[in-house]
């Protein structure tokens, strides 16, 4: 059985909810908190931080503007390619993703049109 936790969409302020499963609560209890991606009824993505009691500590907007028309060049090092590929596929979810993508573009590892 799962419960629902409510949050306000950080983009449009709409009421939204996510299912809080026992597995999620267990993971939060082990790690202190868990992060999950959720979408509000209007489709805006947010990263939620949920504590071990199922309480949503924060809801941060996801940047999705980095997705389109970018590709990884041959200059990109093997070690960082999987992370860059994930960022390009899912969008830059965190600040670290945003910075990595920005630096990767400057280094010529990623080109965007």
């Amino acid at each position, binding site marked *: 059985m799962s419960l629902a936790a409510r949050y306000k969409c950080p983009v449009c302020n709409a009421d939204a909810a996510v299912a809080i499963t026992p597995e999620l609560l267990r993971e939060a209890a*082990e790690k202190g908190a868990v992060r999950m991606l959720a979408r509000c009824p209007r489709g805006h993505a947010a990263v939620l931080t949920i504590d071990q009691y199922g309480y949503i*500590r924060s809801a941060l907007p996801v940047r999705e503007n980095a997705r389109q028309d970018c590709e990884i060049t041959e200059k990109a*090092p*093997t070690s960082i390619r999987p992370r860059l590929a994930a960022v390009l596929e899912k969008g830059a979810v965190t600040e*670290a993703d945003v*910075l990595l993508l920005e*630096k990767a573009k400057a*280094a*010529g590892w990623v080109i965007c049109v």
Partner: protein
Amino acid sequence: MREFMQILGGSRGLKLFMQYERYKLAAAVRAALECGAECRKPPNEVVSLLFSIAKRKGVLKEGCQLAHVPEPKAPPPQAVEEYFQLIDDLVVDRMCEYVAKPPSDVITSEEALAYYQALVSAPFYVAFRRAIYGKLAKLYKYRTILDIGAGTQDPLDILDVCEIHGARCELTAHEVDQRICADLERLASKHGFNVACGWERLGNYDIAVVQNVLHWATDPLKVLMTARRHAKNMFLSQGVVEGSGIVFVMTKVLGSIRSFTWKEVEALARQAGWRMKRRYAKYPDYLALFA
């Protein structure tokens, strides 16, 4: 630290990590020797640091003989696979070029910044920092925190630890690199922390965090003395050669200055006027709380 050790695969994972460190160090030395570097007269600071660490760890023996270091049979712990690939990309595979040219001719400054960002935001490193800030330093118990030589990822990790524990930490991120400072200013406006670019604008804090900063500093004693002047406590975390050798060569390529033993780190902290309250580890990372 239990969580971080779990990520690493327990003590077996830590042992494998150390084996791979040694294996990659030997691979880098072999590449340097095959490309004509001389033990007695290394061509530049990168190769010189590589050889001195290899000698200290018994990988390079008397008479410039490379010790036999077999490849570990098991793959590296999954959490640090990217780290070792990064070492291959940045150190082992390019060692021939470092023998012939200074690092700035091999890696552009833009690439160095991108590598830096990839390193500091690598999942294993983020997990490590969150574990030490949450479980050891318990930073959420302090109201005002000064993060010295913060870089772009450290402040986010500290704020995460505070948030997870429901604490409202007042964070000041200090940085001397102007390019990183510009990134920090942007992050600060979104995440609600202060930025101090340079040493002049510091106030008074409950605790200073000095996490893997000393090897980047031209004057590490000044860093610790400044921390002493502005903070009541200090949490010091510093990679040391007893644990991680090859990583110092990697950061050297990116612009760091030198390596440290745990004794040197501790001696510097004492010299700066700090009194040790608790030492958590000597290596692979020196971790201690000072007052």
